Each structure stands twice: as C-alpha cells, then as structure tokens.
C-alpha cells in the first residue's frame, strides 16, 4: 500500500512541472520584489532549493551534489515545462529529503512557531484569516525538519503542543503525520512524499502579504523564512482581503488552494447540437429506452428548426473528440428516450420527486458498488466477495445469446435478428458475473446496455458482455485498487481511476490507456464523464476536484473546498455545474465556467456516496451511509447567480447566499443509499443493501 508513490512521484513530478513553472511565473510577476528582498543570497545556501528547481534557475548552488543535479535539470529549467523534468530515481529521493537538513537552531522551532502564531493573532482582523492559513504548512514542515534532523523528542513535543491548534479538517493528515517519528519512516510515506515534492498553495491579498513581509523583516527567523520560500507558494492577488468564511470555503485540500492560473483555461462546457436523426417514430415501442441528455433532445424535437440551428456558444465543435458513429439502434434509442422525456414530471421546490428504493436483500457480503443503466432498466451490484450481479428492473427478463450452432441457423437479414439471437430458455431475473479477485468498487453500463464495466481492488477493470454474461476484456494498468470506472456518454471510451493517483482514459478495444490524467496528490476516488464527452471530472482523497480535457490530457480546473476525501460527483444536465460530496458530509456545487464554488449544502451526518441531478437540473439528490436521501434546491442557486453574473470577484470565492437549500430529507429503515438515479421521467431511484442489526 505504501509503494505506489514511488512510481507516482515520477508522474506527479512531470505533471507538477507545468503547474509549478506556471506558478513560478506568477510569483515573479507580482511578488517578485518582496521575494527578492526577503531572500538574501547568503541565506540561499540550503540544499532545500534542490527540491524546488524552478525557483532556482537564477541561483547558484554551493553544494556539489545539488549542483550536479541542477545541471541535469538545467535544460528543463530553461525549457517551458518539458516532460523531462521528472525527478526521482530512488537515489534522488533521499536527495530531495536532504532538503530538510538544517543547521539552524532546531530547538527554537517552538519559539518561531509561537512568534508567527502570535503575530497572526495580533494582526488586523482583515488579514488575520488569510495569514492564518500559513500556520498549518509551517507547522508541518517544521515538524518534518525536526524529525529529519533526528530531533525526535523535540518533534514529539512540538507536535503535541501545536497540532491541537490546527483546523479540524487537517486532523486526518496530522494523524498520518504523527505516525512518522523517525527519519527512516519519512521515506516511503505517501503524504511525506507529497509534502516535500510539492508546494503548499496559499492565496493572499497584497495587503496581507505586505504585513507578513514586514513581520519577516523584523524577525530574522532564518528557518521560518526558508520554509516559506521552499515549501510554500503564496499566490498574491490585488483586492480586498478575504474574510473567514471565504478563506474557509476553499481551504481544506491536502496541498492548499488552487492557483489562480490553474483555472484560467476556457472550458467548453456546452452541449453540442444533436445530429439529425431520421428514424421513424414507432408508436408501439414498449420500453424505456434511453441515452443521455433528454432535455436537449426535447428542445430539439420541440423546435426542430429553431433551436437546432443555433449552436451553444460554449459547446465544443462536434469533431473535437472523435466519437463513435451513431448506429441505427443508438438513434432509435435517442428518439425513444426523448419520447420518455416528454412524459417527465417537472420537479422543483413545489414538486418533490417520488423515490423508488431498491433494497438488496439476502446479500451474503456487503455491497460495495451499485450501478444503474441510463434508462433505469438494469441494475448492477458489485460485492465485496468479488462478485457482480446484474438485475433487470423492467419486466423484460435477462437472456443470453443462443449457442453458436443455433445462431448459425438464423436468418441474418431478419429485422428482429437481435431478438432472435436471444435464447428464451435462459431468461432469468439476474445474472452473476465471476472474475474479479477483490471487492468490486464500481460498475458502469454502456449507453447501449450491451456491456458492463467493473473495477476492483484487484487492480483491474473488466468489460463484460451483457449478451453472453461473460468477461470480454481485462484492462490492466493501474496495478493498484481501481476505485472507480465510468463509460463515456457516447460509449466506447471509459475512464478509470484508483489508488495510483492516476485517471486513465481507455477505448474499449485497446488494452492500453489513451490518456493519463496525472496531478492528484492522492487516490482518484471518483470519476464523472462530462455530458459532452470532452471532459472528465475526478475527485480525490487529496480533497480536490479536478477537471481534465480529454483532448490533450490537461488539467483545466482545480477546485478546492472539500475538507475530506471526495467520493461522488454529478454533472448538471446542461454540463455547466458540477456537484461533489464525500466523507466531509457536505455537498459542494461548482460553476465549471470559472471553477468557483457556488454553494455548500450541509445536512448529512455520514459520508455521502451518491449524487444525482434531476433530468431538467432543478434539484439535486444526495444519499449516503446515514441512510437518508436529501433533496436540494439547486435551482435557487442558479437563479441567484444568473442575476449577478459578476466575474470580477472570481479571485475570492463568494458563496451565493441562499440560506438552506434543503427541500426534503427521507430516511430509509436501515439501508445505506449507495446509488441515486433519476429516470427519464424524473422518478428517483435509490439503491442499497439492507443492513442487519
């Protein structure tokens, strides 16, 4: 479990390079003068600088080893952000570690920390909260320096004295930190690797930054200064200092807030116009057939000419990502799902949804994943005993294909060939899929419902045929537990993410990933494909949500604000808003256009594992292991921001003041809510396993 970071550090480094180099530019642009003043060349002699190469391009190093290494890095430093900047063969890890070596008076760390803390306490209220963010990273790095320099006793004392003062949401990391008590233990610890290889990001108004600078000038705390320089990235902005709520709203991530320039890229979040479908509408269709985005289809059908001509300005060009051709069956399904959508019940604060709950009974093992097909006709549950079971939620029972000799006799040209291929004798309510060798953590149906993807603790993703109920492909690549997998809304592509901190984009016909999304500081815990198939959102236990561009693999949004691991994500049907939730029991709503936090919905009492927007996007449902389903009035938020679409205050997260958004809270008897899904008609389906006692 401790090992993935070895490989990951490599990839992390490469990914960070772009961010870090960008950041360096950012620093130089605004706080350059201050930095220069603060960093007397005579104090720049620490080997610590080796670990933050981008800063050191203009500095010369005294240490021969460091210089050697720097030489190796030099071309990279000059180049923009080349992929060659990866650090870390294992020999180099200890080198990076040596950045913590300090000749200063370590015994005085308590004093330094105290001094900083009292300075912040005594500073103006306006600056207090922004400056307060300094304490946690300073605390961490002081502790690590103490440990690294074998001052175990002092480290212990230091930790016990000040860890209590840290914010609640840091306590989980602090617990991990506190287990590290010797220099040897620092190696190979995930969190330590992250801390020393990346910078903790703080955003601060210029005023606050000035006051910090004055303090540092007055007090010649060399160690403190070097920590600030080496391990912190202070992103200074011009404007009014943020207040406590604003600071807290976006803090909490493992490595601080997102850099401002991380969210500058334009995201094409709109939905492309649907291709024209010329399929005759059969009136005698019997089923709930469906695909995605019924709302849009509805519009298209309603105003076939008008709406269709006017493309969404925020939509990506249809050919941006090569998408699979629509087959006749797909077109038929789109039409059918559109027809289903016509019967949709409008939901809102006056009209709450009906909830139909599917309870799994007699499950021998705990259910660790539940998936529902887009048209709500199939349900797949993954169990901790490695099994996957597929149920039909419609009257249509599940059949397998006939055997080869029987198939051979069929008339291939028949209209109902698909129907004829199926063997009535095999009809069953459910099918069991064996193959994984560890708990199954997620399941995802293909849009055409012919395939199922599952991911497991055994490090693999498996593709199953729902015609033969057998395993088609095993995708190996993660090598560590795969926490989540999801099909793209168009099929063919899928994304998986796991303990190795990487999200991988695959095509079902390729055994190697097409894209790797690297940048999370910890496990990728959940994945949600954007409705337009051009982006992928990932949540992580580093407490951030990131958005990746499928086209180039770049990270285009980093959103911080969760105080614990993110475990579930949901896109609004129009593709602009993203909801996320997890262990911190809060649901956060994000505006992808600017990467800003819109609202925080509190109310759950245990981790949240499922989110779902209603089909028209007016309400959001959340469910978790506190056995409740909660309904939130997100329409209110959208209305609120529509009135004041002020883009100037983007630097400061300003939560929409909406009061309580909770519309309803519904409790099951003893069934955790593991999955929520809105049907085309806006019936909310819930699913979970009944828990005894």
């Amino acid at each position, binding site marked *: *479990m*401790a*090992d993935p970071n070895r490989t990951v550090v490599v990839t992390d480094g490469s990914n960070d390079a772009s961010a870090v180099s960008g950041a360096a530019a950012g620093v130089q642009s605004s706080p350059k003068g201050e930095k220069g003043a603060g960093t007397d060349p005579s104090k720049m002699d620490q080997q610590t600088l080796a670990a933050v190469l981008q800063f050191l391009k203009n500095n010369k190093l005294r240490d021969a080893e460091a210089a050697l290494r720097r030489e190796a890095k030099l071309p990279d430093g000059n180049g923009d952000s080349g992929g060659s900047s990866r650090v870390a063969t294992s020999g180099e890890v200890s080198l990076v570690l040596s950045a913590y070596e300090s000749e200063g008076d370590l015994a005085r760390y308590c004093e330094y920390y105290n001094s900083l803390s009292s300075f912040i306490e005594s500073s103006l209220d306006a600056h207090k909260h922004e400056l307060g963010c300094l304490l946690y990273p300073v605390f961490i790095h002081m502790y690590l320096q103490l440990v690294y320099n074998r001052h175990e006793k002092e480290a212990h004392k230091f930790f*016990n004295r000040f*860890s*209590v003062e840290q914010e*609640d*949401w840091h*306590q*989980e990391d602090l*617990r*991990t930190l*506190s*287990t*590290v*008590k*010797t220099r040897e233990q620092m190696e190979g*610890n995930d969190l330590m690797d992250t801390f020393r290889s990346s910078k903790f990001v703080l955003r601060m108004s210029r005023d606050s930054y000035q006051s910090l600078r004055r303090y540092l000038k007055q007090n010649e705390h060399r160690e403190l200064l070097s920590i600030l320089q080496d391990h912190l990235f202070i992103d200074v902005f011009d404007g009014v200092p943020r207040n406590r709520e604003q600071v807290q709203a976006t803090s909490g991530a493992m490595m601080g807030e997102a850099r401002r320039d991380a969210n500058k890229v334009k995201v094409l979040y709109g939905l492309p116009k649907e291709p024209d479908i010329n399929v005759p509408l059969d009136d005698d269709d019997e089923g709930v057939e469906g695909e995605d985005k019924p709302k849009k289809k509805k519009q298209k059908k309603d105003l076939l000419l008008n709406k269709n001509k006017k493309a969404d300005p925020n939509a990506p060009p249809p050919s941006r990502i090569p998408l699979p051709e629509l087959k006749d069956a797909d077109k038929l399904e789109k039409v059918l799902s559109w027809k289903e959508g016509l019967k949709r019940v409008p939901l809102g604060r006056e*009209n*709450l*949804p*009906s*909830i*139909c*709950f*599917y*309870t*799994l*009974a*007699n499950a021998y093992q*705990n259910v660790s*994943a539940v998936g529902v097909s887009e048209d709500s006709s199939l349900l797949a549950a993954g169990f*901790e005993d490695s099994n996957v*079971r597929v149920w039909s*939620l419609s009257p249509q029972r599940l059949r397998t294909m006939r055997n080869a000799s029987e198939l051979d006799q069929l008339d291939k040209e028949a209209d109902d060939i698909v129907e004829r291929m199926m063997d009535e004798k095999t009809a069953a309510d459910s099918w069991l899929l064996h193959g994984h060798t560890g708990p199954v*953590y997620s399941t995802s149906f293909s849009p055409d419902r012919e395939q199922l993807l599952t991911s497991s*603790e055994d490090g693999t993703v498996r593709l199953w045929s729902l015609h033969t109920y057998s395993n088609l492909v095993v995708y190996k690549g993660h090598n*560590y*537990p795969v926490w989540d997998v999801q099909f793209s809304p168009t099929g063919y592509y899928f994304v998986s993410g796991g303990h190795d901190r990487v999200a991988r984009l695959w095509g079902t016909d390729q055994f190697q990933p097409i894209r790797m999304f690297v940048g999370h500081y910890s*496990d990728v815990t959940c994945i949600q494909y954007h409705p337009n198939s051009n982006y992928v959102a990932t949540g992580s*236990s580093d407490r951030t949500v990131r958005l990746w561009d499928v086209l180039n693999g770049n990270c285009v949004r980093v959103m911080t604000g969760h*105080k614990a*691991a993110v475990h579930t994500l949901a896109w609004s049907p129009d593709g602009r808003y993203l909801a996320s939730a997890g*262990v*911190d*029991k809060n649901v956060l709503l994000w505006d992808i256009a600017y990467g800003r936090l819109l609202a925080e919905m509190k109310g759950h009492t*245990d*981790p949240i594992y499922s989110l779902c927007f209603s089909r028209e996007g007016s309400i959001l449902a959340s469910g978790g*292991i506190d056995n409740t*389903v909660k*309904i939130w009035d997100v329409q209110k938020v959208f209305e609120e921001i529509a009135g004041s679409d002020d883009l100037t205050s983007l630097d400061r997260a300003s939560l929409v003041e909406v009061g309580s958004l909770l519309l*309803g809270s*519904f*409790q*099951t*008897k*003893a069934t955790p809510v*593991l999955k929520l899904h809105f049907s085309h008609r806006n019936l909310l389906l*819930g699913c979970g396993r*009944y828990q005894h006692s």
Partner: protein
Amino acid sequence: MQNMNDSHAPLPSQQSSETTSASGASASTSGERKFAQIPKESVKAHAESIGISEVSDDVSAMVAEDACYRLREVMQASCQFMRHAKRKRLTAEDFNRALRWSNVEPMYGHNSPDPMVFRPTKDAELYFYEDREINLTEFAMETILPRNPGETTVKAQWLVVEGRDKGAGSSPALSEELVQYYDQVTRAILGGNEQLIKTALADLRTNSRVSALLPYFVYLVGEVKSISHDLEALTRLLQTAQALIQNPHLYLGPYLKQLVASVMYCILEPLAASINPLNDHWALRDYAARLLAQICRSGCMSVEGLQKQLPLALQKVLVDPARPLCSHYGAVVGLTALGSKAVEEVLYPQLGTYWPFLQSWMEDRTISNAQAKADAHRVQGAILSAAELLLKTYQQSSSDPHAESSHESSPNQSPHHPDASDFTIGTFGHLLESSGTAGPNSGGHRRDKGPVPITQMYSDLYSFFGDSLAVRVGNGAPFVPAKEDESDQDVEPIIEAGSSAFPSVQVERADLPPMLTFAGNGQPIDLSSMPSTSEATHTTTGGRRTSKRRQSSKESPKSKRARRAPSMSDIFSLSRASQRRRDIVVNIRGGRQVGKKKTKPGALLGAELSRLCRRVPFVGKRKKVKTLPGKVLQPSMGMLL
C-alpha cells in the same frame, strides 16, 4: 509482521481506539495521541517464542518502534478500504487487504463478525485472544446444517411519493409530528386524567389527519386482550374505538374486523376482571354491546359479511353451557344491541332450553353458589330487557304499521339520535329491504317469517318472566330508554341512544354497586309521585339527558302513535299485575320471579350472600362451569372473522 499483530502485547485494544479515531473526521486531540504501542518486552517475548533468546534492549526497542509505525500505516490504509466499500465499520478483512498491499502475509482466522475477546491471563501480565480450538470432525458431522440465506434479491418499495414519506417502504412511516400526536393521545387515554382523556377522545373523533395513525390505534384497541384485568383501561380502549368509528374522516375498511374482534372480546370473554365480583364488568359488556351496535349502524359492515356472522357468533356462545354466565350475559346484551330481529331469531328460540338452565343456577342457594347465582340474575335481567325490546317492537309495528317506514324516511331524526326502533331498522334494515318488505309490509314480513303471533310470544315470555314483563311492557309506552350513563360515557349523545337498548341493566347499574343496593332499597318506594308512563322512568334517573329524551319522545310521532294504540296496551294491561309496586320491580332486577312474593327475605338473603361473597371472591361453584377462556375464545372469534 503478522506475528506482531496477534502478539501478546496490549495492542489490539489501542488499535481499536485508533480505528475509531481514524474513521472520525475530526478526532478530539487532547494532549497525547493514542496509538498502538508495543512495549519492548513484547518483542522479547516474541523473539523467545520463535527461538531467539538473546535480544538486547536497544534492538527490541527499535523493533517495537518500527512495528508500531508499520501497524499505524497499515491501519490507515485499511481505513481506505472501508471507505471505498461504503461502510462505517472497519473489518478484519480491510486490515488484511492493507497488509497484502504492503506485501505482508495477512492474518488468518480473524474474520469472524463477532468481536474477539481479549483478556489477561490470571498469573502473568499477559494478554491474549481467546481463540478456542474447534474440533473440525464434530463440526463436519453436525447434523444441523447452516441455513441457506436465500438468493440475493432486489426488492422495490416506495420510499417517497411526490415528496411525501410513503412509510410502507423501508422507512419509518410517520412524521415526527404524527408520532408525537400518537404518543400524547395514547398517554392521555391510558393515563388517569379525565380532562385529558376527554380532550384526546374529542380530537380523535374529529381530527381528519388521524388516518395515517389508524393502524396503530386499531392495534392499540386490540390490546384489550392483554389488559383484561383492568376495567378502567378496557373502557378507555373501547372509547378509543368508539372515537375512531365516529370520526367521519376515517375509512375503517380493512381494520373493521380487528375493531369488531376487540369489541366482541369485551362483550363475551370472561375477563380477568370478572373474577372479582366487585368489578363492574357488566357495565363494560353493556358498553361494548352498544359499541357493537354502533359499528353495525355505521354502515361499513354490509360488505364484510359481519352482519350475519355476529348473531351467529353470539348464539354460539349462548348455547354453550360450558361458558360462564358472564359470557351468556354478553351474548344476550349483544343480541339486544343488534336489535329486535336478532333477539327474535336467535335469543327467543333458545329461551325454551336456556331458561331451565338459568333457573338451575338461580335456585341453587348454597353459599358456594352465591356468586354464580347473582350472575344468573344478571343474565335474567338482560333477557328480560331483550324480551321487552322484542315485545315493544312488535307492539309498535302492529299498532302502527307505518311506524317503521315513517321512521326510515323521517328526516327530523338525526341519524345520531335514533331511538330503539330506529336502531332495529338501522341494524337490520338492509335485510328487511332485501327481502322486499319496505315499511308497510314489514309487519307482514314478520308474520311470514316468525309464525309466532304476538300474543303467543307474549304468553311464552310471560311464562318465563311473569309479571315483571308486564310491568315493563304493558304501560303502553313505546320502548323508551330509562337512561342513565356513566360520566365517562356521557360526553357523547350517541351513547345515550345506543344505551337505550338495555334499560333494566342500566337502571340496575345505576343502583349499583350490585346487590348491596337491594338491601338498602328494600323499602317500598313512594310510588305516588311516580307516573306510570314513560316519563316515570325518566324522572327516576333525572338529569339533563332525561329531559332531552322526554322532549324527543314527546315530539316523536311514533310515541304519539303508540299512545294512540289502545288495543295493544289493553292486552298488556290485562295481564299486568300490581304494576304500581315498585319493590317488585326491584326484585325483578334482583332476578327474582314475580310469582314468588317473598321479596324481602330474598333480597336480604341476596345481600347477605353478597357480603359473604366479597370475602370469598372465588366461588366454589365456578369450577363446575367449565370455562376455558382462552380456548373458547378462539373458535368463536375465528368464526366471527
């Protein structure tokens, strides 16, 4: 590594403390963090156990330190598996997975869902898991196979319908408000505060939002079977049932049978409270009978087939000599409550065989029989009332063939205030209609069906009751209640109306405590002040309701007609003996036949006996009556439902 994990160190307890704190988002950190600590002594002990004897302190301390760190690391990793399995509880399997991913062999044999017992040895400071050996041979030969847990299935329920909790699903049905309401109402009803009870019942009668709670209240009423020792509580529960019946917003539908079963229980079964003669379970039976009538009248019965079953169920109890007398009494009052038709068709034909049986009880004067004898007199009184009802109905219908039809169509009578004959129609009205006999023909119908002419019937009954019957029937007044109610019942006018079926019983009860009254009442009553018309009866009871009743009877066209029917009255007055002797009436109430003129000694004897009985609550003769309450209950109820 795995050796460390099941080591003898005091580790697991602390391990669990870390587990809990690790799963909590923010553990309170007061001072020292509590993590697994392995003392070096443990390391030494372990080293010895695997054959390494000489381990220096330094080495063991270092090993211990490192083991602690690894342990914590693994523990944190295992929490991750717990989170992704979407659980709140860390399992041994999670820990094993974390071990496997750290390339450490997992622990074996700790995957039981039951917590392991970790305890110290007696002599040394050593802690260990109680890990008993299991004999696999025995285990394999075990004849009891583990139960097949069944196929994993998906069950669909409505959790919420259009934003409202459905309740039928896997959710607790009720909103906080309703639960509180239920709580308060039940507490009020079962508590002793009269005012609260009144308020609660009044609300139950009128509140339209009770429907969600209906099943719970019906269940509450069903509790009569478990509290049959407590008359007070039984009465309250019956009142609750009554309130539910009266609530116009409720559809009893599927719950009706349960309610009727509860009410029938109170009417018929030998309650635990009946054992003590001081308990006035008779009143409870009367009340329950009235309630039964009310349920019948409420109209929701016709579909249920209960209409026909009820008289049969009552008959079955009546003809069963093994039943105690109080059950017989219940059957009689039940039949009376169901109306004259039930009396005529069920009770009247039985009377010939039943009367001697009753007689035998009443004439046994041994002391041990005192209680049973008193009971028998009760039954007699009830039968007398039934006979009175029967005859008066006949009297009215034959004296005024339009009475019934006029009543049926009489709008000036509120359905909630029907008098006795209304009651009859209400109960069996649909039967009459179904046989194609509306109003005017009803008399003919009777004659068709019951070949017994009124005179014949009267003389039959007279042979049983003697003059006491004439006293009741022969005054020419319509059958009008001599009414009186207990305070807890008088809140509801409907009760008065219903209670009208049992005048004698009620009067008797008015004079109760039973028996004792008669001793004191032995004096002839000043009859000069007592008119012999129907008003006379009212006057004796007095009170608000009496005047109301009197008024209504005056207004009632029926009563006027009844008075205008001298022919029938004449028949009765002919056979009326010493009708103005109140003491005779009293004696009838005591169950004595009029023919036996030794009133005073009899009454005194009764008083004496009852005093004795009070000292001897268990009367010997009871044994003879083979009562098997539980057993008897089942078939009768089964038949009913």
